[in-house]
Structure formats: C-alpha cells, structure tokens
C-alpha cells in the first residue's frame, strides 16, 4: 500500500493506492493524520477494493472531522469499493465526490 499526502492551503489530500483489507488497514490507519486541516480529501482512485476494515477507518476519520468542524471528502471511488459503500449505507454518510 502506498499513501501520498499533499497539502494545499487548508486542504489535505490523501491518495491511497492498493487494496484496503484486514491486512493493509493498519497501514492506512497510520496514514490518516489530518492535523488542523479543515478539509480532507481521501482519493481512492487506486483502491481496487475495500473490506469493512477500511470502512471502519473511513467512518472514524469522518466522525473526527465532523467533531472538529471540518469536512472529509472521499474521491474517485472505484466500482468494487462503491458497491461495498452502497451495501453498507456508507454512500449516504460520506461525502463522495
């Protein structure tokens, strides 16, 4: 798994590459550090699939941003990931762009 973080003003973009599952989730969890950013974009264009281990991380991050008055966006969701988000109802919670 590769995680590339870029900051532009108050916007933090975290681009994830590789599958997100039980094996890789701890790596992603370590990479989801937002600091004082008011806007975070999680770019999933290179994530072929994601299991519930990844959903757990997305939910936790989303709640953290909400609590800090910030906003988290999930971008470029691939079809297999999208299916999982739809099945679990996460599409309604997360800000998908």
């Amino acid at each position, binding site marked *: 798994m590769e995680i590339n973080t870029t900051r532009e003003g108050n916007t933090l973009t975290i681009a994830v590459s590789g*599958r997100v*599952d*039980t*094996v890789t989730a701890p790596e992603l969890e370590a990479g989801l550090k937002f600091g004082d950013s008011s806007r975070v974009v999680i770019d999933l264009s290179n994530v*072929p*699939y*994601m*299991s*519930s*281990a990844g*959903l*757990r991380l997305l*939910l936790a991050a*989303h*709640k953290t941003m*909400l609590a800090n008055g910030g906003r988290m966006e999930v971008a470029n969701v691939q*079809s*297999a990931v999208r*299916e*999982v988000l739809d*099945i*679990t*109802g996460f599409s*309604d*919670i*997360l800000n998908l762009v």
Partner: protein
Amino acid sequence: MTERRSLNLKLVMSVFAAFALSLAFTWLLHDRLSEHDAYALIDRTFENVEDEIIDCVNERLVRQCMAVRERLCEGHPDDTASLQELADEMRVTEISVADNTGEIVASSVPDYLARDGKPAFNFVTAGGKAEDMMCLVNGRETEYCQPFRSNTANGAWRKFVGVWLPAGGFVEIGCDGESLRALSRASIVDLFRNWRVGGTGGIVVTTMSGLVISDYEEPNREGSQWTDPDGTFYWKRREIESFPVYVMIPKSSAAVERDVLVGATAALNGASLVFVALLVGFVISSFVRRQMGEQAAKELKTAKDIQLSALPNVFPPFPDETRFDIWASMETAKEVGGDFYDFCFTSADRVLFLVADVSGKGVPAAMFMMRAKTLIKSAAQTGRPLAQVFEEANEALSDGNASNTFVTVWAGELNIRTGLVSYVNAGHNPPVVRLGGKCEYLKTKPSLVLGAMSGIGYRVGEVQLAPGDAIYLYTDGITEQPNASGELYGDARLLETVSACRGRRAELLDAVLADVSRHAAGVEQEDDRTQLVIRYRGEPDSVVREYAPTMDDLAKASADLAVALGSVPEKFRNQLLVAADEIFANIVRYSGATRWSLSVETTRHPDGVRLVFVDDGKPFDPLAHRDPDTTLSAADREIGGLGILIVKKTMSPVTYKRRNGQNILTMGKDYGN
C-alpha cells in the same frame, strides 16, 4: 348431488302443497263470506225497496182518492152504479163513502150497503183492520193507507186508501192488484231505473204474470216475459204491494272482492312461501355443501399434502455439491393427480433422478404413486442396476393390480465423476437433453409402463454428459395443456422454451410454467405439471490450504487467494477478495480457532468459484446474524456486522454448517452460464 336435488324437490313440493291448501281455504272462506255478504245486502235492499214502493204507491193512491173525493164534492152522484162508473173512470176497483160513525153510506159495492135488513158495513164494528180507517173521522189523520192485503170480508186482495171529508166522514177507494199496478206503474219504473245494488246488481220489477215493468239491466225490456235469474246471480224475490220484486247481484260482482282478497292472499302467501322456501333451501344446501365441501376439500388437501411432502422440496438439495445441480417442481392441478419426481444418491458418485406420472387421478392414483415411488427408491438405494430396479418395481406394482393402474417413469442415473447417464424409459415422454449447448429430445424406444404386467424387461440407454450439459424431464401436464381453442402446448413449444432459457436451472422451470400458463390463457389446469432438470458440472479444481490463526497467516491466505483467483474476471475477483477478507478477520480475531483452512474450488459450466472456510473455533453461523442498521447517521453508526452484511449481499450461494466441531462456511459466485 342427486340427494340434494331430491331434497330440493321435496322441499318445493311440500311448500307448494302448503301454499295450495292455504289458498283453497282462503278461497272457500271468502266465497262463503261473499255469499253471506251478498244476501245480507239483498235483505237490506229489500227493506229500503219495500219502504220506497209503499211510499210511492201510497202517494199515488192518495192522490187518486183525493181526485175521487173532488169529483164527489163537485156533486157526482153517489148511487152504486154512478160510483162504479166513477171507479172505472178513476181506474180504481171500488169507491165507498162512510159517515162519522164509520157506516158506509154510499158505495160502488152493493154488499157494503144496508139491504134486505142487513145493516151496512161499519168500519167500527166490522173488526179486523177496518177500524184503523176511523182515524180519518176523529181528526187525527186527513189520509190513511192500508197495505195491499187479503180482504177480511171476501178474501179478495185489496189496498184501501181513504181521505177525510171536510163535511164529516171519509171517502175510501179500494184497489186490486191490477188497479194498483196500473196506477203506480210509472212511478215504480222511475223509482228503480237507476237503483243499483252492490255496484253491478239491481232491481227488477214485474207484473204478477211475469212481464217486466222495470229492469235495471235492460231499461227497454218492459213488457217482455221475465224468468227467474240463473245461477250467476245471488237473488231474492218478494211481492211488495202486488209487485213481484227481484233484488239481484251478479255472483261475479260479489266475487270480485273475494277474488281480489284471494288473489292478494295468494300473492302474499306465494311471495312469502317462495321466499321462505328459497331461504330454507339455501340454508340447507349451503349447510350440506359446506359439510360435504369441507370434508372433500380436507381430504383432497391431505392427499395433496401427503403427496407433496413425499417429494424432496428443499433446493438446492445438496448445497455443497459442486459437480451437479438439480431442481424440480410440481404444480398440482385442482384434483389430486399421480405425478411425482424424485432424486437421491444411490452410491457415493451416482445420483438417481426421475419423473413419473400415474394413470388416473384422485386418491387411488396418489396412493399408487406413493407405492411406486417407495419401491423404486428403496430398490435403487441398494445400488442395484437400474434395469433390475425397474423389473423389481414392476413385479411388485403389477402383482394384484386389479384396477390396472400403471405409471410411466423416466429415470436416469448420473455418474457424477464421469458424466455418464444410464436411463430407463418406462413409457414416459422423452426428456430434453442439452448437449454442448444444443437442445433436443432424447428419443429412444420406450419400455413398457410400470405396473401393467409382470415379467417385463427394461432396456437401459446411455447418454454422456459433458460439464454444462443438462437433462430436462417433464410430465404431459406440461405438453398437453390446451388453450381455449383446444390446441395443446406441445413438444415444439416446450423445446423452444427450454432452448431459449440459458439462465439458472430454477429459472428454466419457472420459464416453462410461465409459458404454459401464457399458452393456456385462462384455461384451467387439468393435470399436474411436474418438471426436473439436472445439470452436470463436472469435478471442480480444488486447492486446499491450512493456516494458523495469526495475522501473518491471514496475509498469507489473502495472497494465496489472490493468486488462486487469477483467472477470475476482475469484478468477481474483487467481490470474492472482499468477502474472503471479512471471513478471514472473523476467524482470526474472534473464533478462537487453533487452525483453519481455505479451499478454492473453481467450476466450469457455468464458470464459478466456491470458497470453503473450515475452522475449529466456537460455533458461529454468520447467516443467523442480524443485519446492522445501515440507515443510521454517521455519529450513531457502529461498525460491527458490516462484514457479514457485505458477504451476504455479494456472495451467492452462501451456506453454513457445523460438523465435527468445525464451522464450515461455503460461499461462492457463478459468473458464467
């Protein structure tokens, strides 16, 4: 049915009898009543008529008497002869003059006068009613009329009328019947011309010799001969003041009231009786029908239930079996038929499957079906060759088969290692085989039906199935379903429908049923529709690997799986990897297993994958798990259970078993046909 009809008939007849009886009674009652009423009316009428006639006659005769008195006062001579002349002139019978003592001093009748020492007639001493005339002397009356009656003196019928003389005494005239009628006839005619009795009845007055004076019915009949009324009248005759008077009421008129009453009663009684009869009939028949219907329906349902419960009805029947799949259905007609299907393993690698149709319908057919099914299955499960199974079953079924019931069967035995099917056709419809994607009827010469006669041998045919090939069995309830114009569904349509359906096997059965129903277009199903389809899938390629319950081994399993699924299309591969990851995590984190394994089985025709997870952890059935609420807001959302939800939503089939202290979870995906 017949019983109910005769019950209805008896009911109707007894109701009709009661109705007729009550009507006859009513009619009789009202007939008597109307006769009684008619005579009462006639009697009442006579009272009036009598008064009227007497008044009329009296008035007329008083006038005549006054005219006589006037003539006498003008100086008409009063000797007998002159008085007789005057009497003739005045059309009266006799004229007499009496003095204040009541003695007749002048008369047209010589017998009344004193002669030859005999004293003159004296009203006072004469006795009888004569003295009544003396009222004219003492000043109480100026005129007096006696009724027409037999004279006491000489027995002749007379009516005497007197008027007083201012000088004293009185003048009396006497009229016989003829005179009376002559004088008062005109008044009488006027009197009765428009007199009606009881609507259409009336009064007829005649002379003593029966000539009509006044006839209410035919006013111009005066003078013609009268005869007594016939039986169509209620009537009475009385003589009043010398006039024979008939009061008549036509019976038809009197009967009008009766007829109206009887008619009304008939209508009312009729209506109420019909209503009651219908009500009672309805209540009884619906009661009987319910009793009989409930009983019959209950028996029918029990028979059907027994029949259906005897058939394997859980699909897929062998969920772990990847080398073949089998689906069957039976749609029963209203009446219990004798169709059945069956399948079972006859050895570790052979599966028997069959469809059968017992001749006849109803409970006897259903019972024969149960016997046939049991005989074939129990013989087959001993592992005996198919031909021998059929021969044994045939001997048993034809032994003592008095009703000559028989059963047609198509049975095949699939070797699930090789795909070879041995089959016997005992007089059944040829099945459809799909070989290499092409469908056709498997037409071979059938053997004799089972149960027809003993000592029959059964030919065994063979057909080789490759993975993906299938055999479709059915009964004639499918092919012989007619539409409204009598056209049967037929072999051609069936072959077309089976060929066209490339979906899952269960969908094929539904597609055929739908097409048959469409063809029937409302025509009732007459026979059971039974179908079975078996598809050979061949031996799977199977890889089994064992792992320890550690995160390292989880990563290893994940990597192994990714390699094993290398040839699977990406979409399905991703789904399988996500689902597998959920199961891995459950086993490693929560199960408490000491070891676990994953086997990956890939199948062909259709292409598909089965993942079998086996662990020795605590019992955990993911399918029994309640789904989490996926509609909660982010803040309320909990993460547990989502993994199982993803597995259930993306994998099909998913099955769970607990066996030998192990959880065995199978999940998979078919991505080709």
